[in-house]
């Protein structure tokens, strides 16, 4: 895998921030994933060489972090928080609502590759619960209607 200019730049600057090369690993893996959709075998091969680790060591790190994945998912990731602050304000019902609406379960994507659904742990939106993240965007004071609106909006946008 060849790094894009943006990744190349980020890598070049980040390796100067730490006394060891592997220290760039966690953020770099996430930036790679953001750009190509998943941390693929090729990406693991590339980053392992760059930070002077074995591929196994890189995989070991990947498996620890809940945001990292080795396979692509639907384009719009609905991450519904059901942890306690959200639960107290109906977060679990919202997850069920999403499940029915999208027709997929936890950590599943729709066949058209458009949506992905995940039940996630606390995202730090407790005072504005219930809440979710749509990719990296926080959506707070969530209601079933708001979720429907998001889904319809995405469908419309993607049809154009």
């Amino acid at each position, binding site marked *: 895998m060849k790094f894009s200019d943006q990744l190349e730049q980020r890598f070049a600057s980040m390796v100067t*921030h*730490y*006394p*060891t090369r*592997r*220290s*760039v*690993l*966690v*953020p770099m*893996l*996430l930036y790679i994933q953001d750009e190509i959709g998943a941390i693929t075998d090729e990406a693991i091969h590339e980053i392992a060489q760059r*930070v002077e680790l074995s591929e196994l060591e890189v995989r*070991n*790190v990947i*498996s*620890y*972090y*809940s*945001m*990292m994945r080795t396979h692509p998912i639907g384009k719009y990731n609905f991450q519904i928080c*059901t*942890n*306690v*602050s959200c*639960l*107290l*304000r109906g977060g*679990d019902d919202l*997850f*069920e609502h999403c499940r029915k609406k999208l027709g997929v379960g936890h950590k599943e994507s729709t066949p058209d590759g458009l949506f992905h659904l995940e039940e996630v*742990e*606390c*995202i*730090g*939106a*407790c*005072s*504005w*619960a219930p809440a979710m*993240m749509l990719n*990296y*965007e*926080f959506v*707070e004071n969530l209601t079933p209607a708001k979720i429907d609106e998001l889904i319809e909006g995405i469908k419309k946008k993607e049809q154009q």
Partner: protein
Amino acid sequence: MAYLVSHPDEVKVVSKRFGLGATNLDRYLELDGYKALQKALGMQPDAIIAEVKASNLRGRGGAGFPTGMKWSFVPKQSAKPKYVLCNGDESEPGTCKDRLIFEHDPHSIIEGVMIAAVAVGAKTGYIYLRGEYRYLIHIMEKAVADAYARGFIGKNIFGSGVDLDIYIHSGAGAYEVGEESALMESLEGKRGVPRIRPPFPAVVGLWGGPTVINNVETLASVPHIILNGGQWFADLGTPRNGGTHLVSISGNVERPGVYELALGYNFKKVIYEVAGGIQGGRKLKGVVPGGSSVPILLPEEIDAPFDYEGMVKAGSMMGSSAVIVLDDQMCIVKFALRVMKFYQHESCGWCIPCREGTDWLKKTLIRFHSGGGVMKDIDNMKYLADNMLGRTFCPLGDAAAMPMQSYIEKFRPEFEAHLDGKPCPFEKVAEAAVV
């Protein structure tokens, strides 16, 4: 983006620039920005530490360790470089306060890190943010770049001869990394498995060098302490509980939000006045005062000062000042199940009592909540929690055990009401647990 709330009883120190556009460096400077750093650069390092000690500032991440004392543990002479690491992995369920500091006052965090670095003689500071806080990483990266462009960070800052670098670092989803030794592992590019202590990070930390690790809010308090004096900050709170804290209020209250209160403010008033009382005028069932890892308090236990000692006396802990309010419609077994499901998910598996304990608690609670419980389960869960406590490298095991003990001790009749195949008394329709 998270919206702001306010209440007349608030004492705004850390939050005083919220909503005032202080992400802009010029605006930050108008609002006394970087004055504390310049003052600190003219002080002896020992004098800075003495000021922080006098302030009675304690770690706002959850442990409540005195900040000045932590800094004083860093050896003056060190063969290895020293570091300051700002812990912005905010992940304790119920906690959403550091997010607001990142969003509204990013330079105050940078300034706090720099003052800490000057005090302990570090040349490099890292600000670690949880990966989910991507928009805040952008805000912080811009703030750091702006400060470099003005020469506030970098070589010879403010003509003092001191060189200092600050870097922003993203996590990638891991609660446990909020624990300081796991945080260092993560920053070094590894799995966030905790290290055994001693040695403590102040002596052997990042890459083996002495390292000060403080929570975001703790560091953001420091510039105010340096500018206004440690005694001023101490006087805002109660003895041994200096200053103010950001209180994240969530759950079944009328006005959830993040409020800044003086330490020692009455805890009952936090719920009934600041947060506007229980949602829909319903009854209070219980309240978790410091994030999901602390014991729950009953309504009759909450008339106490909201500070470190006050909460311990009441039977819980102040933790990260994340107040989670439960009304009388929440089933305690369902609540316990959600909490244990979380700790089971976040356990790294390194220590057996935590790995096995959280898993068995979760499994038992799933069965229990769906009507398959037997009397012996209740004692077994208590036994599991008792035997996890204090037997793990990092506090994650304790974080699961302590609340579990409190749910059973304080709500045993409600657990018993689930026995003999009866459906959960709180479910409108009997249904299997959603987990």
